[in-house]
């Protein structure tokens, strides 16, 4: 049994990377490994938007990640610098920046790059999807 970490750098609906990462995540768990965490960076932060509303016959990527967290307690960390630039923020950041709305909430957490380094050290394997 090994610890896996995933780094996701592509946005849903414009890059195939999130789909690949999600399917890989389920395969990792199915083989009896543990997922130490998923880190969303660059355009990957768009995966965390709770306001995405794709047609009902398409996968809602936000919900799919949230389900992964609910079923397997996988931490979902989002790079705060990449997120704020792209208009992804939680309630407290929205207040701090004087914005009317927020689109990021648990199980997604805004964190710094240090969290990625920590994941890299904790995991036996870090696989990038970009």
């Amino acid at each position, binding site marked *: 049994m090994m610890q896996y970490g995933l780094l996701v750098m592509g946005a849903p609906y414009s890059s195939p*990377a999130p789909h690949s990462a999600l399917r*890989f995540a389920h395969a990792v768990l199915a083989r009896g490994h543990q997922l130490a965490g998923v880190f969303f960076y660059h355009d990957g932060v768009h995966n965390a938007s709770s306001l995405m509303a794709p047609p009902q016959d398409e996968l809602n990527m936000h919900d799919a990640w949230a389900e992964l967290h609910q079923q397997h307690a996988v931490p979902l960390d989002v790079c705060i610098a990449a997120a704020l630039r792209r208009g992804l923020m939680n309630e407290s950041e929205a207040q701090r920046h004087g914005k009317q709305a927020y689109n990021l909430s648990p199980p997604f957490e805004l964190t710094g790059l240090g969290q990625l380094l920590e994941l890299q050290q904790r995991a036996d394997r870090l696989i990038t999807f*970009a």
Partner: protein
Amino acid sequence: MILHILTKAPDSSAAAQMQQAVGAQDSVLLIEEAVTAALAPAWEAWEQCPSRIFLLLEDLKSRGLASIAAEHQLPTLEMDGFVALTEQYTKTVTWY
């Protein structure tokens, strides 16, 4: 020993960079757009890394290329096999 994961087509700059970096003990996994390599029998990487290039079957299927890959007897892997490859290689590099 490194597992190289290529996500872009064989004629991409990502593929060219990967080809320069691949070592004699390394393996290559083609995912996403990279599986269109099934349509490119002249791609130098086939000769560069004989029997060490794998294609992700579900990405071949979603592009309608699974039968072409089978005709050319290209080695394919399910997602489970992708994870198995990462178990064998301590280092992976994704080219995109």
